């Protein structure tokens, strides 16, 4: 990855390819987490587009204390692998010995209509930033915990600060065939749209947040 100051200059120059994004994405959340069933009182309404945890705990493109960022996967398999990985690993160790109990989850689709996405799967963009798939999918948790520099978090911070992009599309570390999207909610303004698909009006979530009369 280029040094931070050079990345900042590159972002200011607005020479990086800007990609639109119009398609469905997916998120899979453990049922209790979504509805607050593991809280003393369940949530009055679930918040499927909750994005604060990324800044509270840190995430791949979000430093702790950084901007709220909403993460989602481009396909159902990748979304499910995020919530299923602990169970899958244990099952792989002793397939016939452990109880076969997978966590209850809620999978939902998210309609995404964005105009300005930085697509890190684009090799031209990778070359301009002098990065590659290894760096983009590298582990980050222990580095963050040990106060070491996390290149993807630095990049996310600079991309958000530039104000030029609404989201980052990136290769999934979990599933090398999959891709994910990190959206900056405060950069999503009309006519751009992020909306949870739910014909039962149970999971209500939309960005930008609509004005209620």
């Amino acid at each position, binding site marked *: 990855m280029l040094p931070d100051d050079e990345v900042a200059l590159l972002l200011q120059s607005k020479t990086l390819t800007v990609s639109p994004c119009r398609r469905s994405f997916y*998120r*899979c*959340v*453990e049922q*209790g*987490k979504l509805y607050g*069933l*593991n*809280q*003393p009182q369940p949530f009055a309404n679930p918040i499927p587009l*909750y994005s604060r*945890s*990324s800044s509270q*705990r*840190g*995430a*791949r493109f979000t430093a702790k204390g950084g901007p709220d960022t909403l*993460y*989602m*996967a481009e396909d159902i398999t*990748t*979304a499910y692998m*995020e*919530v299923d*990985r*602990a*169970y899958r*690993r*244990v099952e792989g*160790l*002793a397939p016939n*010995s*452990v*109880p076969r*109990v*997978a*966590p209850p*989850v809620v999978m939902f689709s998210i309609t995404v209509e964005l105009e300005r996405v930085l697509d890190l799967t684009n090799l031209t963009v990778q070359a301009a930033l002098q990065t590659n798939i290894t760096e983009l999918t590298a*582990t*980050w*948790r*222990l580095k*963050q*915990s040990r106060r070491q520099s996390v290149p993807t978090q630095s990049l996310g911070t600079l991309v958000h600060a530039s104000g030029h992009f609404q989201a980052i599309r990136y290769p*999934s*570390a*979990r599933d090398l065939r999959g891709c*994910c999207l990190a959206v900056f909610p405060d950069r999503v303004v009309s006519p751009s749209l992020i909306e949870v698909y739910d014909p039962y009006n149970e999971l209500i979530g939309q960005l930008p947040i609509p004005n209620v009369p």
Partner: protein
Amino acid sequence: MSKVLIVSEDAGIVERLNSDSQPLLEVTQTAWGAWNIDTLPQQGIDLVLLDLRNPGDASGADRNHLVVECKKLSAETPLLFVTDVDPIVRQVMHAAAQGRNMAFADPDALIDVDDMEHAVVKFLNRRKPGKVEPITQAKPQSRPVFPQLVPELRNPESGRLDARRISDLFSIPLKQLSSSIGAASANVYKTPDAPGLQDRLSLYERIARMLLLLVGSEEGIRMWLNTPDLELDGELPRSLILSGEGEVVADLLEDMLEGQPG
């Protein structure tokens, strides 16, 4: 008092157990080479503890033969194997022994009298229906009153987190657990649910609650904790917890529950 036969070359085990002023077990010991397996049914033994760490006079082949014979005997007499094999293998073996008359214990249990007695008593109790249930994610009939807590880790009388119960669930010797939370092990042995320990034990409950949701069983929890995690740079979650980096493990589990794509 339960009668326990220890097959081991470590002569100090019985001495350590007998040093306890209020022993819970009646312990006898024999060396591997001197053990006559055919007399076992007549001895009224409640449990045989086989120390697999040291071959002593018996060759490995002899020991293996004895273990095979023991497995046949396990229909009548429970067997507790003490082994220091790779932790992952041990967890798999542990899971394979579930529901049978066999179990595996950590070698550290032989060093500490309390840990040793606790491992044996716990195993013996587990065989008695209704005494000690395996910790699994129960199917509640109604929503739990305190869903953010893990009742299995709490003393039912005081309601407080109990280091002894945490030690069992995480398969961490109490001495190591005490060290990880910066508490004197003597005090933790004496009062494992002391009010002063509650804040320091809360991270263990947070991790246990999430792991129960994600893997659904006690065995699954121990396997996950003892398997290197790529997302944690190949380190064992258990080691990170013990070295004071448990928050990063808890955060990883929170992200799993939220399905946060990494």
